[in-house]
């Protein structure tokens, strides 16, 4: 298992503190083990009331909150937390049924949403994206990674001295990737954040566009910046 987890960029030193609020012990066990093996510090509570007490005493990088909890709806628990000025990013988990659920959760202040069952890699990628988000979103006009440069006003990408001829969609994909350097970005994250699609395409929609993007960004330069993480997604790094 540890060998498998190394794929998810579990660097030591980046010890993240995660609070899990989940009443199903099997799911909680699976999450706790998976996240600990990724090198994170995990605290688990089965009931939202206990979680609130812990939250009053300690701070966390992110909270995983189940939608269905005993005695209290996850959405209500979330409203309570937000009411108590707890701004920790929250990722909500829900059973595979309601599309309405997601809207309600996001409105109550959830930062992201994941439908059960999900791959651990997907959860880890999303948690990293949440926890490392700057507290105040500064809209930089220029993004830089290695010799790759994005001018967000002209919507123009250059590598070294070459202007890259990207389609608007390819530009948006690259922009999203470059905002998460060194992090795994999953296919469904790209679908949601770049396209705004919530369905799961049967076809290789993401792969097709990513391979076109990589053909333009990486292929002519010999030095790969975008890598595929098998079974998980993509990661961009300075060469």
């Amino acid at each position, binding site marked *: 298992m540890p*060998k*498998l987890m190394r794929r998810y960029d579990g660097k030591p030193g980046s010890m993240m503190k995660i609070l899990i609020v989940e009443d199903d012990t099997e799911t909680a066990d699976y999450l706790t083990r998976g996240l600990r093996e990724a090198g994170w510090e995990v605290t688990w509570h089965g009931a939202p009331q206990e979680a609130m007490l812990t939250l009053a005493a300690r701070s966390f990088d992110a909270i995983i909150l189940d939608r269905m909890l005993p005695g209290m709806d996850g959405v209500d628990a979330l409203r309570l937390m937000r009411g108590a000025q707890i701004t920790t990013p929250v990722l909500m988990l829900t059973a*595979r*049924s*309601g*599309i*309405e659920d997601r*809207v309600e959760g996001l409105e109550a202040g959830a930062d992201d949403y994941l439908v059960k*069952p999900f*791959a651990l890699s997907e959860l880890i990628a999303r948690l990293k994206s949440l926890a490392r988000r700057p507290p105040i979103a500064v809209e930089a006009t220029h993004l830089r990674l290695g010799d790759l440069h994005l001018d967000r006003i002209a919507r123009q990408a250059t590598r070294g001295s070459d202007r890259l001829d990207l*389609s608007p*969609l390819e530009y948006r994909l690259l922009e999203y990737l470059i905002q998460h350097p060194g992090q795994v970005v999953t296919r469904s994250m790209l679908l949601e954040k770049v*396209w705004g*699609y*919530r*369905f*799961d*395409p*049967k*076809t*290789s*929609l993401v792969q*097709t*566009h990513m391979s*076109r993007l990589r053909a333009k960004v990486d292929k002519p330069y010999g030095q790969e910046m975008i890598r595929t993480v*098998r*079974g998980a997604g993509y990661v961009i790094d300075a060469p």
Partner: protein
Amino acid sequence: MLSTRHSILGSSVFQRVLAASGLFVLISLAALWVLIWIITHNIISNQDDRIADMLAYGEELFYGDSEQALIDQIAFDDGPVWSSDEIYWILEEEHQIFTFRNADGDAVAGYPDLWAATEVERFVLPHPDIEEEVRARSVQLRGGGTITVGEFIPQRYYEAVSLAAFGTLAMIVIVLPLALITGFFLSRGVFNRIEGVSETAAAVARGEMTSRAPVTGRLDEFDRLSLGINQMLDRVDTLNSNIEAVSVGVAHDLKTPLANLGGRLELIRRDLQDSMAVSAHVEAAENHLSQVLRIFDAILRLGEVEAGGRRAAFVDVDLSQLVRDLGEAYAPVFEDADKTLSIDVAPGVDLRGDPELLQQLLANLLENALEHSRDAAKVHLRLVRGDTINLHVADDGPGIAPPDRDRIFDRFFRADSSRTSPGNGLGLSLVKAIADLHGAQATLDPEAEGAHFSVMFQQDI
């Protein structure tokens, strides 16, 4: 037949007809008897009044004038005491009979055989030849004499009484059996019609799903009942076969990936020492599992869409933008599959709907075209605005075989009956469900060369 007749006699219609007839007879009899009682009572009290008047007149003559004046009034031409022959005339003319007796009780004038108490009594008048009833009363005179006045009971009285008797008899002997017969035939008519429906229900309960209630074509209430039940049975039949198709489809589509998953687990056990092989097996197993989950996802989403709950979340959607974006997203995928997707979108088409579901609808149509069109196919995506808003996804062959066209939107239907091609047979049913939710019609053009799918939305204005 015997058992049927038993059932008819026990049927609620028959019992109601019987009860109603019985009640009718009772009420009629009561009315008849009350009427007859009023008539006879009237006759008798009139008679008693006349007798009383005449007695008073007799007393007036006796006390006011003289005994002789009374006798003169009673006497016929041939003497004061009446012979029995005179009674015939009295009877004929409906006159009264008088008797005046002295203190010794001898009849001084009138009919000597008329005796009566001081209260009115009814009796047969003593007479050698006739036997007729009279009502009569006497008054005692001062000095010991009596005046008696009698009157024959009139024929009208006997007629009224016999009418009551005859009426009662007629009701019991004629009306009751008639009611029984009417009730029987009426119930049999209703019974046979109802029985047809009951037999159908029983047959369906036994599992003969094709059984239908008889319809006579008279379009009366029974025909309406039968037609209603038949419609219901047709609908149940359709739903039933849908469920059957879905169950078989689910079972079939889940079996393959689950079997593959099992196979991979076995391979993992075999290759435990070889970590490279194990990780390859795990990846393959994950793919099989996600295939299973995808099927469940599609079923659940289909259920959610069909329940119609999402209509509340409708917003204004820029359909032109949505179609263009999806078309552009999918065009490279078509290219990689050596097919082409041409996009022709009318600008500025808006409608109210659920953008997420509309994206899914179009994506499913595009993926369907991608998977099932011929090699190097040309696929056209068009959004046209006319009287309606029409979204078309059409390829240039080979199209769909005519027998499959009607079922193409059914759940788990696949034109490829071996079920080996990708897909789960839910994509197009989801297209139809989403179209229905938006009040739109999803159709397959039967005239077109290739597979030509259209979704027709009503303009909202």
